[in-house]
């Protein structure tokens, strides 16, 4: 797991200490989650300054609500749940200000290919193409891929966070991966044509 991620046991202890008013523990938790929460919110909210404002709201809610955390989920699930709630609230208040939320059915299919261009490219180029392809995905797909591959949450925790069935999590990830792969293939095909 990345250095910016905390272990759940440590984070649980931090939340318990925050519940007693420990500002040092809150500061530690803040630094562990600020960037992650910010970019999770940016999945829904394109405006950077609004996303920052929501981060502040989330962290303040974390401070006030630490005593309500029951440790029945991971700390990260709980915090991202707060962030998701506040981000979607902001989207509802401000209209559609986020990334595209096109339903899966509307994304055009690419012709299937026997051999993908992805396999043949260098690591550095792969990183660039991956980043660009991710930015083209819908908010739902970006969110689910972030939760699986960056936050490394188990599918049960993601189901809890998104309040969807576990099987829906699995199939959503499957289709998100498919779309990512298609975007990357499309980009690499365009480059090869040029």
């Amino acid at each position, binding site marked *: 797991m990345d250095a910016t991620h905390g272990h759940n046991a440590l984070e649980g202890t931090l939340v318990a200490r925050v519940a007693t*008013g420990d500002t040092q523990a809150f500061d530690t938790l803040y630094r562990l989650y600020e960037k992650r929460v910010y970019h999770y919110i940016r999945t829904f909210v394109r405006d950077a300054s609004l996303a920052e404002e929501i981060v502040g709201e989330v962290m303040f809610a974390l401070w006030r609500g630490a*005593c309500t955390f029951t440790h029945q989920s991971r700390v990260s699930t709980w915090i991202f749940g707060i962030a998701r709630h506040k981000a979607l609230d902001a989207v509802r208040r401000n209209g559609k200000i986020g990334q595209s939320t096109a339903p899966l059915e509307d994304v055009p299919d690419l012709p299937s290919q026997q051999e993908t261009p992805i396999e043949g490219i260098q690591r550095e180029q792969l990183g660039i193409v991956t980043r660009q392809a991710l930015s083209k995905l819908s908010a739902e797909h970006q969110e689910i891929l972030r939760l699986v*591959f*960056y936050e490394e949450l188990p599918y049960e925790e993601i189901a809890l966070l998104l309040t969807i069935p576990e099987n829906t999590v699995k199939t959503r990830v499957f289709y998100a991966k498919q779309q990512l792969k298609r975007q990357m293939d499309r980009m690499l095909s365009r480059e090869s044509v040029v």
Partner: protein
Amino acid sequence: MTTRPDLAPAHPTATLLPWYLTGTLKESERQAVDEHLATCADCRTELAHLARLHLPMKTAFLEESTPELRVQQQVMGRIQAEGTFAQPAPHTRTGEGVAESVEQWFRRLFAPRWIPALAVTLLVGQLTLLLWTAGEQTALPPSNIASRGIQPLSTRVVLVFQESIPEARIRATILALNGRLVDGPSTDGRYTIEISSTEARSLDQQLHRLQQQSDVIRRAERLAP
């Protein structure tokens, strides 16, 4: 969501591959995927493809920009300005209210290093009192009234909380009993609470209610006198 057969996962196990890659599957599921991969070339190919994308995806998410420092400063300023506290009231260096004094008293009680000293003090105190009263009794003139024993002035109960329960909840539960913490937490998580006789009448009801809260309390019972 419509199902598109050409895109549907070939095997149910294929849907678990992302979590197999990140090492977050339950052990039984991980073993099932292991067994499936041993016989399925398509899933092995899919796993290899995922593995190749894993680091670029993590890097893509990691390299994004950071919120400005002023956001944290604003949050800390708001916390200090409102003086808000999750529960109970926050510790402040300047001026402590009654609630904060109680909080500090409980915090000292829960500090492990004080428990042995408190236990020893209580034992010595009770032993001294026992010896003193025993000495007093032998000096009393004979009486025609036979003592049938002294009724206890207080009752003691033992509480054992579920491991996940935070300190704030434990304190609130003890306070709700109008009791006094006399021992604990012990190494096995027992809290011994002394309840005055005036509160003891409703104690059975309170203990019964606590026992119903199995998500909070593992054990709640009177101690034998």
